[in-house]
């Protein structure tokens, strides 16, 4: 096949995956903007979003939309629980301990999802039907378009939340100066708690979008989570726009890489990009508001 | 002879001019005082000299060699020791280890020889320990040599920072407010020790708000205000310098109006 013909196809799929990585990255950024914590269990929320929706549709026989909403609710509840049971008790712990605790939580979530939902990979039916759209000889599923729109919608919502509401300002304050925020009557723990809710909700949403596109199994969460984090770093750690931009860059780079190098190396590409960006510009493309502050 | 020469140094922080065309010299074997209201750029100047930050314009010479763009550890190896305004002692090490760590570059031995504890490592360690204890004795911290540095009081930690800087055997010592938080008696002791250091041939550049101490021991004083060098001279000249008096008083008024905004 001609390379020129495939490339637009790869671009489309890259953009779709990029949008999903961007969504996952938004989850990381939401937490980082409220507490300067990195939640390595974020990828598991994505996986659980898909898994729980699948469970509600296939085992409880609920309609698609209802099960999706239920799944988001369940995952948000899990996010709150994660904060209450793991992050809050470790509020005074040092960085490696927090890091390991979220990794432990990720291990727990993925392995117990294998217990509950089985180890078989699962795929949801696409909610836009199976027909393909075609523009200029490039065909793509309507699902991809849907994912793109939803990603930008979430970005818009988060932008409104952080720049035009009191809550967003309070979250940012508790991130940049926790003690100062406490003294102003903003509870940093409450802010972190809320951020975990928002971020797990976004993760679940990403999971619901991703499950129709490819098979999700209990162990795929970790990798998706890491790639989301990498997207956030590429675009500029701590910026919503950067997260989406990084997601697109990573998605396109990954799917284009398939055209040039063996498919087995695909997962390595993301980490290679990560190492390059960390070496040459750790601030990310759009620059990061956090990179010079305490923990980074 | 000028040991340290600062030539037209300028430093900007996001539009704020922290230092503007500052030039002065520090003569060998003297104590030079650096005065100025808070935020005048004194600590910034120290960061520039010790290489932690780089100036936007201007050059810094040490022993007639340019050190402007050297890395902090290279500058330290050339013979400039410093203390920090915000305390930075190694709290998880004992007092004597703090001073011994400062001798790192003068001790022989790498990973392999240290790990195998080859004979000369023991000799080097003993030598370092002896020298560190001498420094502590000189500073009056000898009674605390086995304590963890984090257990020391605030003023003792300040003295320990000087001890650490002395551990590098500096020719020029940059002291950033060494007497802050010290009682009257301790400050008196400190200025006596600084005098002794001068007699040993160590040049000192000193930031201090403690006027009495400054006037007593400094050979020369430079005054910074809003990043500009406004006066330089002997303590007597500075005491009566009209611009110095104006800077301190005007600064006070400005401070009030700023806080109202």
């Amino acid at each position, binding site marked *: 096949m001609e390379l020129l013909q495939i490339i637009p196809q790869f671009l489309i799929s890259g953009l779709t995956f990029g949008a999903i990585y961007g969504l996952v990255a938004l989850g990381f950024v939401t937490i980082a903007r409220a507490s300067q914590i*990195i939640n390595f269990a974020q990828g598991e929320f994505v996986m659980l979003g898909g898994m729980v929706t699948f469970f509600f549709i296939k085992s409880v026989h609920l309609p698609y939309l209802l099960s999706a909403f239920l799944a988001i609710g369940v995952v948000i509840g899990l996010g709150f629980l994660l904060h209450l*049971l793991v992050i809050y*008790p*470790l509020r005074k*712990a040092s*960085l*490696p301990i927090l*890091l*390991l605790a979220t*990794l*432990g*939580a*990720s*291990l*727990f979530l993925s*392995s117990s999802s*294998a*217990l509950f939902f089985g180890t078989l990979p699962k795929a949801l039916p696409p909610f836009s039907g199976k027909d393909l759209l075609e523009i200029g000889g490039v065909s793509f599923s309507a699902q991809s378009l849907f994912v793109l729109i939803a990603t930008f919608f979430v970005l818009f919502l988060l932008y409104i939340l952080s720049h035009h509401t009191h809550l967003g300002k309070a979250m940012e304050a508790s991130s940049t100066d926790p003690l100062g925020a406490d003294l102003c009557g903003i509870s940093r723990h409450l802010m972190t708690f809320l951020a975990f809710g928002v971020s797990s909700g976004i993760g679940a949403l990403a999971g619901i979008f991703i499950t129709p596109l490819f098979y999700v199994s209990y162990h795929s969460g970790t990798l998706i989570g*890491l790639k989301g984090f*990498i997207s956030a770093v590429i675009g500029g750690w701590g910026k919503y726009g950067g997260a989406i931009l990084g997601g697109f860059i990573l998605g396109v780079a990954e799917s284009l890489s398939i055209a040039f190098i*063996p498919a*087995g*190396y695909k997962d*390595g590409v993301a*980490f*290679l990009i*990560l*190492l390059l960006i*960390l070496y040459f510009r*750790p601030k990310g493309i759009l620059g990061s508001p956090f990179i010079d502050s305490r*923990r*980074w | 002879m000028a040991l340290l020469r600062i030539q037209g140094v300028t430093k900007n922080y996001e539009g704020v001019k922290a230092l503007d065309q500052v030039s002065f010299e520090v003569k060998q074997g003297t104590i030079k005082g650096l005065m100025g209201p808070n935020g005048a750029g004194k600590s910034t100047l120290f960061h520039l000299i010790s290489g*932690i930050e780089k100036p936007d314009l201007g050059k810094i010479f040490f022993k007639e060699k340019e050190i402007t763009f050297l*890395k*902090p*550890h290279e500058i*330290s190896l050339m013979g400039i020791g410093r203390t*920090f305004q915000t305390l*930075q002692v*190694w*709290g*998880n*090490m*004992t007092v004597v*280890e703090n001073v*011994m*760590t400062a001798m*790192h*570059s003068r001790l022989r*031995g790498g*990973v392999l020889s*240290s*790990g195998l504890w080859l004979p000369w*490592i023991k000799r080097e*360690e003993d030598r*370092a*320990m002896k020298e560190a204890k001498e420094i502590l004795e000189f500073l009056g911290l000898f009674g605390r040599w086995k304590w963890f540095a984090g257990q020391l009081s605030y003023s003792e930690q300040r003295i320990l920072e000087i001890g*650490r*800087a002395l551990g*590098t055997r500096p020719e020029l010592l940059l002291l950033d407010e060494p007497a802050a938080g010290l009682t009257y008696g301790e400050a008196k002791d400190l200025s006596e020790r600084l005098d002794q250091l001068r007699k040993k041939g160590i040049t000192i550049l000193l930031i201090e708000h403690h006027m009495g101490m400054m006037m007593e021991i400094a050979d020369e004083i430079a005054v910074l205000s809003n990043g500009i060098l406004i006066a330089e001279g002997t303590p007597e000249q500075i005491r009566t310098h009209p611009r110095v008096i104006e800077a301190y008083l005007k600064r006070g008024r400005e401070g009030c109006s700023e806080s109202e905004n």
Partner: protein
Amino acid sequence: MVEQIHKDFRKRDILYSLALWLLSLILPDPQLHYRSEYRLRWRDLFYLLAILLLPLLFSDPHFHHLMVLAGIHGILALGLTLFLGYAGQISLGHAAFFGIGTYTTAILTTRHGWPPFLAFWASGIVASIFAYLIGKPLLKLKGYFLALATLGFGEIFLVLIKESASFTGGVIGIFGIPWFSIAGFVFDTYLKQYYLVWIVLIGLVLFTKNLIRSKVGRAYMAVATTEDATSSVGIHVSRIKLEAFMVGAFYAGLAGSLFACVMSTATPETFSLNLSVLIVMMVILGGMGNLYGPIVGALILTWLIDTLAQYQDYSLPLYGVILILLLIFFPDGLGTRLRVRLIYLISYWGRKKRREKVNL
């Protein structure tokens, strides 16, 4: 009567302090930082005897095998504690250096016919060369970003190992690595391997102990606290970090080589992120900046994983929960907390008895 009570106190006090002294002989010092007067103590002799006699007391081969694994994990954790515990930098890619060591030994012994003893040293050196190449650019990062970058390195290592099948055997791995042997003496039983691994570990502990009581260890600890002050006394901060990273990788390479010779296989799945997390966990559990702690952590976690394995499907969720609980309840190391609790308990019993007496 008052005299009588007084005498009782004396007797008790002596008993309690005796108990405390005995405890201090056995339990590791919670803050085994460099002390100028630090030298080998009686408790070290106790550990040595315990290590030498333990496999003779319990002759179960499974136990021997477990202890071999624990020893290898101990070497890994000891290497990481220099980097994480003393120099204060985090690495989530330590398993990759372990893997590099294993594959170096595997390839050198099976393809090029090197004797295992030479391959052992070569593994360590190759691992630290890789650490140099990786650490040189990456160690300017701090905190989470360093963790992420090292994690990325680990993942790339896994992908490379899996994909370059002609060189590393791909997903299947390399089989038939010869037993470790020195001058014709072959370590072919679990008992022999136990002594091999633990003697290497003891040697490395002594090496590390010397390291941290010399200027090198002081520089590591200085870097961990404040980098500005460290560079202000003429220490090249990034070189010190790189050095600690390379020493840690060297240990990991040695551990990998032993692992290859003990298991006689090298498969990529062994060196995943889970192993890196496990090693960091050992160091945290043992207490940061503590020499014996990581080894105790290695023993406990190796045993824990082996015990959990019998619960099959439930083992991983349980492992995750236990990991989190350990982190919540022992954030500064098992030894530190337990020792403080024990001392507190002993003195509490003492005080309680006294109070009762006085109330009478």
